[in-house]
Each structure stands twice: as C-alpha cells, then as structure tokens.
C-alpha cells in the first residue's frame, strides 16, 4: 500500500539522518522523501512516501512518533490532501520536429519547457505521480537523457472543506 506520511520535526542538524536511519534499521522502505523548513523556522516538514502493509505502516508511524525530534506524525489520506511532485526530464531531440511535438505535449500537460537546444530539451512538470507517469510514458520514445525528481510534497486539505 502506497502511503504518504507527513512529519513535522525539529529543524536542526542530524534529524534527517535519524529519520532515514530509522527506516534503514527497521527494514522499512522509503519511496521518496522531501524536506524543507516550514512557516516556523524552528520546524521542518518531511514528506515521506512508503510502500508498506497496514501493520508495518502502523509501526512506521509509531516509531517515527517515538523519536524525540519529531513533533507530529500524520498519515495523509490521498483524497483529503493535495500532493505534488516536481520532475525535470532532459529529453533527446533527434530531429527538428521533436521540439514542436514535445512542446505541444508539455502544453497539454500544462508544464514548462526549458533550455531548448538542437540535441536536447528540458521538460519540467509539477503534478501527481499518475500524471507524471502518463507524461513519462508519452515522452519515453524520444529518449530520456536525465531525470531529477523532488519526491512528493503534500499538505492535508483544510478542515471541513471537501473541495
């Protein structure tokens, strides 16, 4: 079961190490992790996605919660949260028409293209994993030269608001 866990932690050195080391030492899996400071400079938010069964997920949350440097651990409901990932792909340009085709695809996916060159082009997409996978499938044929992903970043939706 793919799950998103949102963890508020003390923003200080060594905390990321403790979190990742916990996953390693207890044989849990990190699918992606993104970290950044929050509106409070003393607090960072880590968004961790993991593949685990219910029992293991339960343990992951409890073990994270047990760490003294974690302030809040939440399992995010996919339907009740906004989650996105930013991905950049450097695609191979083999013939001049590739640029037009790729730009059209990017427009259809509402994403940007950068660094347009004779032999390569960079596509940047911020979307849910499903949309990212859909685009990736479509552009695979051109040849993906390089790829960089940020990992999922997520927030729970507002209270009482089902939008």
């Amino acid at each position, binding site marked *: 079961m793919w799950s998103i866990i949102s963890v508020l932690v*003390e923003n200080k050195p060594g905390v990321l190490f403790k979190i990742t080391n916990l996953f390693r030492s207890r044989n849990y899996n990190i699918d992606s992790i993104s970290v950044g400071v929050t509106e409070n400079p003393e607090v960072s938010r880590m968004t961790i996605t993991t593949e685990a069964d219910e029992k293991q997920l339960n343990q992951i949350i*409890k073990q994270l919660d047990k760490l*003294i440097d974690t302030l809040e651990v939440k399992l995010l409901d996919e339907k009740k949260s906004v989650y996105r990932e930013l991905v950049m792909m450097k695609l191979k340009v083999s013939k001049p028409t590739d640029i037009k085709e790729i730009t059209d695809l990017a427009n259809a996916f509402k994403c940007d293209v950068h660094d347009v060159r004779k032999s390569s082009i960079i596509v940047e997409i911020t979307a849910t994993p499903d949309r990212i996978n859909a685009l990736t499938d479509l552009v695979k044929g051109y040849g993906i030269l390089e790829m960089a992903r940020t990992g999922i970043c997520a927030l729970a939706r507002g209270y009482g608001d089902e939008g």
Partner: protein
Amino acid sequence: MEKISGARSLMIALEKEGVEIAFGLPGGANLPIYDELYKSNIRHILVRHEQSASRMADGFGRVSRRPGVCFATSGPGATNIVTGIATAQADSAPMIAITGQVPSKMIGRDAFQESDIIGITNPIVKYAFQPMTPNEIPEVVKKAFYIASTGRPGPVLIDIPKDVQQNEAEVHFPTEVKIRGYHPWVDPDITQIERATEMLLSAERPIILAGGGVIISSAFAELQSIAELLMIPVVTTFKGKGSFPENHPLSLGPIGMHGHAEANKLMTEADCVLACGSRFSDRSVGTFEEFERNLKIIHMDVDPAEIGKNQTTNVAVVGDVKTSLRIMVKMLIQKAIKRNGESAWAKRVKETKDYYRENLKIHPHPLAASKVLKKLREVLPAQSIVTTEVGQHQMWASLFFDVIHPGTFFSSTGLGTMGWGFPAAIGAKAAKPDVPVLDIAGEGSFNMTENSLAVSVLEDIPVIVFLLNNFTLGMVAQWQRTFYDRRMIGVDLKNCPDYVKIAEAYGAQGIRATTLDEIGKAVQTAIKSNVATVIDIPIDPQEDVLPFVAPGTSLKDMILPS
C-alpha cells in the same frame, strides 16, 4: 556572572542531578572533564576497559532506578562503550554516557582518536547530544537525565568536543526543561482498562505475562494483587523474572526458549493473556503467529510503539504499568471480585505445575546445574542482588534459581551481552552496598571482563562471582551438539586460566568448590568476609539446558529432558 569552563559546568550539572559516583577511564579528549572530576565530590571508579564502565553504569542504573554515569574518551574509548550502550537500550536501562570528542575544529578531519560516536550510536541510544558551546551543557545534562529516566528508560549519550570542555562562558543552570517532542507519561485510558478487566474476567483460562516493565515501574504489589484477587497464574519473560515472587503458589516462572516447562505448557493452553510491560520478544514467545493463535492479548506498555509490533493486540493500555495495574486493582475491589482457586483452570494449573516439578529428569551429575543453583538459593539471603552473564549458566539461573524478592535479579536479556554480569554486579553493589551482590557466571563470559576484579578489590566494592565452570562456551557447544551433529568447533576453553589464581592475583579471594557442601560454605564465606570472591565450580561440560524451545519453533514444541 562568573565565567566557568564547559567541563566545570558539566560537573556542577551532574552534581545537581544527584550524581555521586561515575565509572570511567580518562584519555586525551576528556582530560578537562577529569580535571574537574578531581575537584568535585563525585566518586570516580577507574575501570580497566571502558566496556566495563558502561556495564557498571548500567547495573547501577537498573538497581538504583537512577541513570548510571560513565565516562570515556573519544575514538576507541567511545567505541568501547558501544556494546554497553546497546545493552542498556535493549533492556531499557537508564544510563548517561559522556564521551570526549576531538576539538570542534578537528571534527570531520579524521583526527587522531576521532570517531563519529553520535552516528555510530544513533540506532542504540534513546537520544544523543553534542553541545557545541559551554553554556549549552547544563541544559543538555538536565534533558539527558530527564530523557534517560522517564517513560521507557534508556541510554543517553553526551559527546563533548574538547574545546567545548575547555572554553569558558557565563553559564545558566535551568531548574526544569521542556522537550516539545517528548511525552514520556501518558495517562492510561480508563475505558481501555475497563475493557481489559472485562476480557480478563470473561476468560476461562487467563494467564498473566509479566515483563521487565513491571520491574522498571516497581509494579510488584499491584501485579500480586491482581493475580491473587483473580487467582490467575503468572508467567514472566526472562527480563521479567523476579517481578513476581517465584516461591508464590501462582508463580510458574519464565516462559520462552529456556522457560519453565509448566510456564510454556500453560501459556499455550491459556485463552487470554494480560501482558504487562513486555515486548513479546522472539526468545519469550517463539513464533509470533503460533503464539497469538486462539489467544486474546491484553497489552499494557508505556511505549505505544510496542503495541502491535510483534503480536496482534485485542486490548491495548498505553501508560505506566504500575498506574494501569493500580486502576485495574481498584476496579476489581469496587466490583468486589475475589476468586478462589476452585476453577477447572486453577486445577489444571496446579496439576501441570506439580507434574513438571516432580517428573522432569534431572541431569545425573553430582554438580548438575539444578542442584548447584538450588544450593545457592538456600544459602544466599533473599534480598541479595543477582546478576548473570550470558550463556548456559544464565538459562540455568532462569530455570533453577528462584527469585524471592521482586526486583533483585538482573541480566542482559535483550542484547545477550557476554561479560555484562560481573561489571554490572559492581555497579549494583555501588548502588546498594548493604546487600550481598552475586554474579552467576560462566567462565566464557567472565573471561571478557574479569579484569574488573581490580575494580572490585581496589575500590572496595566486593561482589561474588559464582562461576559455573564447564571449560566450554557451553551454549554454543549445546547448539553444536543439537543442531550441527556434534561438530564441535571454537568452544573448548581448556580450563585456562586457573580462576582461583586469577582471583588471588588481583588480591581477591579465590575458592574452588567441588561439592554442594563446599559450594554452600564458599558462598557463606564470601558473604561474611565481604571481599571480592570468585567461587570456581567445575561442572559437567556435557550438561544441556533443558527444556529448550528451538529457534524458529513455538512454545508447544518444547524439548524436554529425556
């Protein structure tokens, strides 16, 4: 405000926490700390190897229920206490380990005697601090003691770079600290305790499983009240051994790999277990799936992460075990519930216990472990503290040495650290000088920390080493006999050294006892003389520890002596 050094502020902070004794060994990177130790009122116990410092601090902490303190220098000094820290973590023992570190500017440059002890110990500490300025130290110390001793206790590391020990600053000593991500005490949920009580009352074949948490929270009286009010038999984990008097009619002793036959048997027959402060270790329960089959599990624990970790729980009560049990006792008294021992289950329990106690075959040797340890029990006062090493002698102690006074038996049960028992006994004796302290040892384990005899003698902290000497790494030998078709390798210690002479070389008393009578007399001599004593008891190298639940099997597959 006057400026003081980091080392000075450390010493003041330790004194404010009530530290009177610390175990350690100095080196280049902690000399400023030692220079302040020289000026302080804290008694320093010089060890011969840092590993023993951490184990003495561990033993001190378990007995006094206050964190034991140990010092080590950077690099190898720090890595030498790693096993001691891991042992304390596995058994939830309160400990403060204070290491010197290379000067802050040298960190990361692979300096002489530099080791990343914070990184190395990360998975085996409850928390670790590395103060980078002298004025952080008092708050760090206060937080360290708070973390180490509250909730589920554990080891806390404080790693102090040498320049931070030396530099001076205006230092403020806080009287209390707050850690926003740490909530060690949770009030148990009354509704859950009600549900637990109902489940226990409606069970036909209830059993209590008492773990180490009962000892840590001193919930002895509460546990006994529940057992007696409901006439429920009590099994323990090995760590929980002695949380319930083992001469009590309802006591069945420890379950597990080398549990009592009656305990293992009745555990598998029970339909509901009240588990108090136990983490359901594989050594206690065998295979997890088999253990929980047809069994309702009520789990009380201070650590929410233990709920559901190894076993599926039917009712969970998160909170201090003593508090939870006390509430349960009140509920039972309010409901005026008092049972007699007339149920079919009570009869089955008694019959099973009597059967195994009368019919288990005893090893045919004049110094069979059971005879030797029963002799020890006869002559050792009940309030004495007993530690063990790790191996066959430890499991024989579990099987044949009854703990009468709750909370007087300590062993490295989780990590299984050989060489733990002797230094831990010295720490225990330092915490409780008025009672005899005895380490039930095997020679394989004793070899690992026997140089602590110097500490026991020179610091006048006399403990007794009760050495069951089979000239073999006995437990490994037993597994080689049982699982490897008697291909014996790496187990023969060939009666070297002579432990009486070793004792004498250190200025301790060495006694060789070759009959039960001599054993009894030797223990009495050791207690009376109040000097460090090694009692060397040659036993049969061929004796196995039985019953035995082989690894990866369930309690019902217990192998009995034949």
